């Protein structure tokens, strides 16, 4: 770096416009540490000095250690729709902080077989995608890099990913389950690049729904019969949480973590139609789900339109997105303030061939996404 941070400015330039040369680099690092990842990336394009500072090791460790905007929503992206089959696939991403849409490219396939077929799970900045040829990739969609991982062990073709836990520079884990005659789980660890069997639960369920990670425990809802299950990530131990499920018939349930507690969002069905969308909070002491809010009636009427038999729910950092699957109408809610709003209309044309719903909430991160080298080594050995 050509600037000597500690040297005082020449007095003759006192009246000139202030510049980076006149503030020590460590002070700029402090300023930059208050930026969201997106602005850090944009700021690299300002000049070489900024680029060097923003890529430097001292800044990286400062940024990782004290994420000043950790609680902010600046970089929250709801990747709602995608056209995976097109020649230039992309996801339509909604940013609540700006009420704006942007197009996030999905890796262009090298051949038809390697295009994203289905995204199984997501967490942090990462998605786990299955390619047309059946192989699996973990991809950082913001950085545009990814790598293939070994496929999960399939038990009679019935294994599916339950959750992806992105621990940033510490790596990531994927939990997959099969639910044939009992729950059998396997975990992929980016450190070892291996799937290992870890835990089983003697219980018959049709399927396990979305998962939510709270204090190292992956919670998920089972369907048919409906229960709340807990999976300890460290020990691989499964348990059935002793809690009475909501008394009414809940459809389209979605589990989420907010303010360090577990919440459940779902629709109440009446005569084949969804008449209410309710939110419950888990009351551990009373061992029940306590109603803590619902979609206001006038919003529900508009959200539902003529008819709604299914909706998706997506959340991250206390921001929830509802999508009516029949009409693609979207409604947002910030749980921290219980503020509801209609997002701006998606400006992208996406073919409605049934693959258009993407439904993953992600946030970019700084730093390299590694693992591919290890995987290559593992493959050879």
């Amino acid at each position, binding site marked *: 770096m050509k600037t000597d941070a500690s040297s005082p400015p020449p007095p003759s330039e006192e009246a000139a416009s202030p510049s980076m040369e006149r503030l020590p680099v460590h002070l700029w690092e402090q300023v930059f540490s208050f930026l969201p990842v997106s602005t850090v990336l944009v700021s690299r394009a*300002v*000049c070489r000095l900024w680029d060097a500072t923003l890529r430097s090791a001292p800044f990286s460790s400062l940024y990782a250690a004290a994420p000043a905007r950790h609680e902010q929503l600046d970089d929250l992206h709801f990747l709602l729709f995608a056209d995976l089959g097109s020649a230039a696939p992309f996801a339509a991403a909604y940013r609540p902080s700006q009420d704006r849409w942007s197009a996030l490219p999905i890796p262009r396939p090298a051949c038809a077989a390697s295009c994203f077929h289905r995204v199984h799970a997501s967490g942090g900045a990462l998605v786990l995608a299955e390619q047309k040829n059946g192989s699996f990739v973990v991809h950082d969609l913001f950085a545009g890099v990814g790598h293939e991982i070994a496929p999960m062990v399939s038990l009679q073709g019935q294994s599916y990913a339950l959750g992806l836990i992105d621990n940033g520079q510490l790596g990531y884990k994927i939990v997959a389950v099969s639910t044939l005659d009992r729950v059998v789980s396997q975990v992929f660890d980016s450190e070892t690049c291996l799937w290992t069997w870890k835990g089983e639960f003697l219980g018959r369920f049709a399927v396990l729904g979305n998962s939510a990670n709270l204090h190292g425990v992956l919670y998920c809802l089972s369907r048919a019969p409906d229960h709340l299950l807990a999976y300890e990530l460290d020990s691989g131990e499964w348990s059935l949480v002793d809690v009475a499920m909501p008394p009414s018939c809940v459809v389209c349930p979605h589990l989420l973590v907010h303010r360090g507690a577990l919440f459940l969002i779902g629709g109440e069905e009446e005569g084949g139609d969804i008449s209410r969308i309710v939110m419950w909070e888990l009351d551990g002491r009373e061992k029940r789900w306590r109603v803590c809010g619902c979609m206001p009636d006038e919003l529900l009427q508009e959200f539902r339109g003529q008819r709604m038999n299914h909706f998706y729910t997506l959340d991250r950092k206390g921001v929830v997105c509802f999508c009516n699957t029949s009409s693609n109408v979207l409604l947002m809610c910030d749980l921290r303030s219980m503020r509801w709003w209609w997002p701006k209309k998606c400006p992208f044309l996406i073919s409605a061939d049934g693959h258009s719903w993407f439904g993953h909430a992600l946030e970019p991160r700084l730093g390299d996404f590694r693992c591919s080298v290890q995987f290559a080594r593992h493959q050879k050995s």
Partner: protein
Amino acid sequence: MSSGDSGPSSSKQLVQQPAAAGRSPNQPPLLGAGGRKVIVLKSGDEEEFEVDLLDAMQSRTLRRAIEDGCGDGPMPLPNLTGPVLAKVVELFRRHRGDPRWADELQETEKEGMFKDYAPQKPTAEVKGFDREFVSVDRDALFDLLRAANFLEAPGLLDVTCDAAADAVMNMTVEEVREYFGLVNDYTPEEEAALRKQHEWAFQ
């Protein structure tokens, strides 16, 4: 950089006055009106400000100087102007008890000086003051940033760095260059490549 006594640290500039005779380091400074311990800060343009000793301790630079025993007479701060120092002193007063630095004070407590100085969460009023504090033009913000850096005051640093970051967030790359007086030293191809690499962030 080490802020030890031996190095050419910024506290050197503070120790311009002759050491007060008969006073040892760490001795509590003088008492002001009403029995409060106060010190006097003197700006480069000779303006003097009476500051509660405990408020001044928010600055590591001032704390070092006080602990070195130079809090008796007016403490010269030649690189701060009167208006900047006035603002800083007001922020110190409003941030009294701010946990961002009060914890640090408890650790270095000497002779029970800080026993009545319980940390408290910043109130909405303090947050409002902070916002108002940095609602200034660019040059004034830079003066405050430099003052924060020189004084090594965590609360002041947080408020000013956050404001500078806000400025960056609300501007395009071109506007940032203009605002901070930076020259684009990329070739057009290099800049295009950088923008292409994280296209989503530029949308």
